[in-house]
């Protein structure tokens, strides 16, 4: 099979556009109404922001290689959302504090993941899965049934609303674009980013070229945790409510988004642009299923199947016999 030389993020975007056009043909779709189509597209973009931010940390750990993955993302999102909810309690001046706490808590959990993976040699999948359980336990402890809190007006203004009435781009999307640029800078214009890719391609070479592998591991997982924390902050700013399964639905799609975007699940190659495109695709799929009034069970099957197809195309490893 000839190699298609379209870069994966572009391919993902094309896929997204195709899916969107298809969605217009559905019974509940926009049909030929341009205004409705625009509104729906904007909505999809806005929804994709949250998955996109949450998948940023996932992108980092997957690029770092050695089967890097973060399954604690979902529960960290829920936890930081709850913390934000409680700390802010409707007060604008508490928002910054809540943001910092979210980042710090996320970073701490990520750091613990990193310690288990690096020093205790637990595989990333198992470690983060276990940690997810611990965080969920912590959530139950804090939640005790119900928490009282409220989102601050400034958060809703900054996240859920559009920039200005004439320019109907939601603020969240602008935040996301800025975020994307920062992620690009991190990956392509810092030594952290260069080291991260090196780690993902070949740890031995990286170490022998002076990269502090241990430190990078810890930093990557901590950073991933912090980004998940940021995601939780944004999510609660958008929804205005918290509940125990707030973050969980983002977990699997975050991994799928990274894969769709062309970041190799084996590490060493990828980009955040790809993840952004992947997040849009995944949000489209979910929204399509909702429009078709498919139950959650079908959504799960479709997601599972999609990832399976993706890795069958992109993820095949060396054959035993050459």
């Amino acid at each position, binding site marked *: 099979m000839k190699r298609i030389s379209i870069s994966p993020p572009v391919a993902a975007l094309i896929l997204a556009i195709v899916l969107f056009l298809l969605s217009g043909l559905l019974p509940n779709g926009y049909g030929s109404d341009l205004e409705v189509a625009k509104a729906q597209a904007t909505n999809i973009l806005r929804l994709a922001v949250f998955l996109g931010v949450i998948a940023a940390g996932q992108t980092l750990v997957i690029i770092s290689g050695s089967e890097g993955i973060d399954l604690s993302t979902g529960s960290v999102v829920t936890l930081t959302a709850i913390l934000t909810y409680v700390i802010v309690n409707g007060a604008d001046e508490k928002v910054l504090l809540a943001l910092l706490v979210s980042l710090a808590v996320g970073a701490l959990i990520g750091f613990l993941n990193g310690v288990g993976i690096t020093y205790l040699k637990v595989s990333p999948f198992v470690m983060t899965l276990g940690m997810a359980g611990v965080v969920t336990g912590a959530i139950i402890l804090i939640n005790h049934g119900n928490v009282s809190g409220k989102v601050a007006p400034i958060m809703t203004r900054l996240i859920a609303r559009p920039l200005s009435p004439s320019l109907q781009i939601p603020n969240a999307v602008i935040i996301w674009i800025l975020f994307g640029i920062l992620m690009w800078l991190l990956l392509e214009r810092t030594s952290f980013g260069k080291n991260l890719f090196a780690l993902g391609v070949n740890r031995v070479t990286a170490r022998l070229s002076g990269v502090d592998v241990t430190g990078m591991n810890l930093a990557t997982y901590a950073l991933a945790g912090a980004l998940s924390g940021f995601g939780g902050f944004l999510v609660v700013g958008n929804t205005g409510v918290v509940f125990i399964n707030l973050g969980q639905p983002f977990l699997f799609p975050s991994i799928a988004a990274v894969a769709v975007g062309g970041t190799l699940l084996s590490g060493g190659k990828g980009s955040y642009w790809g993840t952004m495109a992947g997040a849009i695709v995944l949000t489209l799929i979910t929204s399509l299923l909702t429009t078709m009034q498919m139950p959650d069970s079908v959504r799960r099957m479709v*997601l599972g199947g999609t990832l399976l197809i993706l*890795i069958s195309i992109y993820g095949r490893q060396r054959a035993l016999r050459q």
Partner: protein
Amino acid sequence: MKRSRWDALTARQPALFALILLVLSAVINFIVQPNMFARETLNSNMRVFLPIILMAIGQAIVILGGGIDISVGGIVSIVNTVLATRVGLEGSPDEMWKYIFVSLLIGLLAGAINGFFIAYLRLQPIITTYATSFLYAGLALFILPNPGGGIPASIAALYRDSTPLNLPLAFYVIAVFLLIWLYTSSMRYGRFLFAVGGKAEAAYETAVPVTMVQFSTYVISGLMAAFSGIAITMLSGSGNGEIGGPMTLNSITAVVIGGNAMSGGVGGVAGPVMGAITLGIIQNIISFANIDTWWETLVKATIIVVALAAPGIISIFRRRRS
């Protein structure tokens, strides 16, 4: 002198450590619950432990072969929902046996699907079985969206009350599987399994049928997950689409406690069986320890993480000493 003999012993018999843990936890449990070994209590405990034990047997074999199976929980859920809906509370025992047979076929098929992607398409085990776990879990929910259904009371009673020769039914079941493993591991297949898990390239160059062996481990895991699903359905007597979810991590923890190397090629099945029982006993101890309900989830999750990290902690100690 003493230390190196200890090291050599645990290297040769990885299950030794699991045995010690089992005895320790049993002793603590006995202290907290003095009637632990009474026929009723013992039977009750073993009934509850059996599903995880069966799942751990399958997981142990997959991990021995160098892989891992995250989808086992999903398979359990499918089996449970099939039995609960197809047989139902009003069903006849004959129907039950018929659908038990069908469940085993489901397990074999699910395992074969995993095996196909991993052994033949050479996809990474973790991400593949993670994808199929969603697929299978979604299917289970599709079959039974809300908890309900059930199995004939007579079957549930059979499972609950059978104590041939005053020993729990579970003992006999475990004994049968252990005997099967004893025979299989002494065959060439056993050698193949350890070779493939130890170093697949070396096994391939030695003309071991690596692909077939890897494929078979997933089929076995699927089958054992099906047995596990049958056991848990008999235990709970009813259907629940999410029943298998939490079991997956427990099965992996049981294998780790049991002394098997996560990288493969080292360990057995007896160790994980003991590990599964130990895990069950520990959860018993926590229930008896009168911890605040809100803390329970957190404590149990932390113990799991500690158990997963234990091999790493131990090897750090070993290195510090030498």
